[in-house]
């Protein structure tokens, strides 16, 4: 009888697949950062700096906007880092086949993609902090909130990666562009990135309900709970809980989609 691959082999194999992704991204780190940071930097500049300097928004708005934009960067980067390569690798380049034929369980191949997309998202959101200082002059920071900040960003990135896996495996490759246009814009503007969620209750109840469905809302609100607790926000523990729930849902959906694409 042939002996099966050991757990140690599986770990080494997983590490090698992750190393491959890091090596490839490392080669064009600048392009990667430009790609994911251009949009939030402009957002920050126009809405946080420009409009405030011109007197159209109050100076406090940039403090509200910054945590939201970091949250958006993390989640959107993770979604993109997952969905686009996944579609290409399953449909056109077939590059994933070599990894699917490695002595790794299927969930580990999918898991590596989630880990890598999360790493990219965390790097992108970390770079947002020095950029924020550069653009705004100063950014809100609270040492007490650091634990919550890391927890929210980590969970938010993981949820983003799993949303990306779900979209990337369920949407037919020929429809991925239209799917992204239809999914992204609503995600971008219903994630409490540019507004504090609790304040919506008095003015726009229906929009508050809509925003509550978007997982990005809990990343934005969690970031505010960590960085600017004086602004009305959803309590941190509720954000963490909501994100954990989203992770369970999209993790399951993404894995079902991945299995469906990987095995006929």
């Amino acid at each position: 009888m042939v002996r099966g691959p050991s757990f140690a082999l599986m770990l080494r194999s997983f590490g090698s697949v992750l190393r491959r992704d890091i090596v490839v991204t490392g080669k064009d780190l600048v392009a990667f950062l430009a790609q994911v940071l251009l949009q939030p930097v402009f957002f920050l500049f126009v809405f946080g700096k420009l409009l405030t300097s011109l007197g159209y928004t109050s100076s406090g708005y940039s403090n509200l906007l910054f945590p939201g934009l970091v949250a958006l960067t993390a989640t959107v980067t993770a979604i993109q880092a997952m969905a686009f390569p996944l579609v290409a690798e399953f449909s056109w380049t077939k590059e994933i086949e070599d990894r699917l034929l490695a002595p790794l369980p299927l969930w580990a191949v999918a898991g590596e993609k989630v880990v890598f997309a999360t790493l990219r998202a965390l790097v992108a959101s970390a770079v947002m902090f020095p950029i924020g200082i550069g653009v705004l002059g100063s950014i809100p920071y609270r040492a007490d909130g650091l634990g919550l900040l890391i927890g929210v960003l980590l969970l938010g990135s993981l949820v983003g990666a799993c949303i990306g896996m779900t979209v990337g495996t369920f949407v037919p490759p020929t429809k991925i562009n239209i799917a992204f246009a239809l999914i992204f814009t609503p995600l971008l503007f219903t994630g409490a990135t540019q507004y504090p969620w609790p304040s919506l209750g008095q003015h726009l109840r229906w929009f508050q309900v809509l925003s509550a469905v978007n997982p990005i809302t809990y990343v934005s609100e969690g970031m505010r709970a960590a960085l600017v607790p004086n602004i009305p926000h959803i309590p941190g523990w509720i954000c963490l809980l909501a994100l954990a729930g989203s992770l369970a849902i999209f993790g399951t959906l993404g894995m079902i989609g991945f299995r469906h694409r990987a095995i006929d």
Partner: protein
Amino acid sequence: MEVRELVKRYPKAQTNAVDGLTFAVAGGEIFGLLGPNGAGKSTTIGILTTRVRPTAGQALIANVDVMVAPRTVRSLLGVVPQRNNLDRSLSVRQNLLFHAAYHGVPKAVRARRAEALLEQFALTDRANEKPELFSGGQNQRMMIARTLMHDPSVLFLDEPTTGLDPAARLFVWDRIRELREAGVTIVLTTHDMDEAAALADRVGIVDSGRLLALDTPAALVRGLATGASLQIAVELADERGLAGLLDRLGTLAGVQRCEQVGAEALGHTIRLYLTGEPAAMVGPVAAAVAEVGARLIGVEIGEASLEDVFIDLTGRSLR
């Protein structure tokens, strides 16, 4: 390697892509699955390489069930797919090295093996380039070299030379033969009868998901109702002598039947269907022709091929 009563029906399909395949491949053998496009060859390979879930039946590699222990199976087998699936973000050498790393090959071993395989597959010159602009032949060589990096004991080659130029094709054939010498079990699919005849120790002929015949290429050809043939051209002094000549040829030992297949100004073409070796029949046939006062002006030996076997089995041509 063994498959038993293997069935695959894709969702929404009207028929089975693989329909009750049963065969076994011995260690160190080159086994060819020959059949037209859509016969179920690639699906069979897909099941054996854990990428396609069978609807029914069993597939075993080294006595390990591919459904029960897919990871173990994947560590034993190498796959060269029909379509290019090289990692375009990595150089040729990195493609090889990372593949070995995915399979847990120790660092020193993979570095040594990569250099040897780059050399063997004539890729050393371009080892640091990315495979974006490579020719079909270079891609194919790279994919074979890559899969050998983890030293598989069973190698699956899906249409290994389709679309390659003759030189590239011969290069790949030579490497495949070397691998057999090294004791690797090889399963290859092809719709090219020449390839099956040139490489395979045994050939399974498949059509519509079913195995129609399985034997060595020589035995398959020998087993044809119409075996080898001999085609002769004769010049007759008198046209009326043709019937007599055909009668005379038909009575020769080793001739199954004969018929006129063409008549031109220069003479008549007659085909003789033989039960034995065509070369041995040239003498007696020439003698018989002389006997009736005709002149032999041409002889052509027609060997039956796997293509004829396929036509005999299905009534259709392979292509």
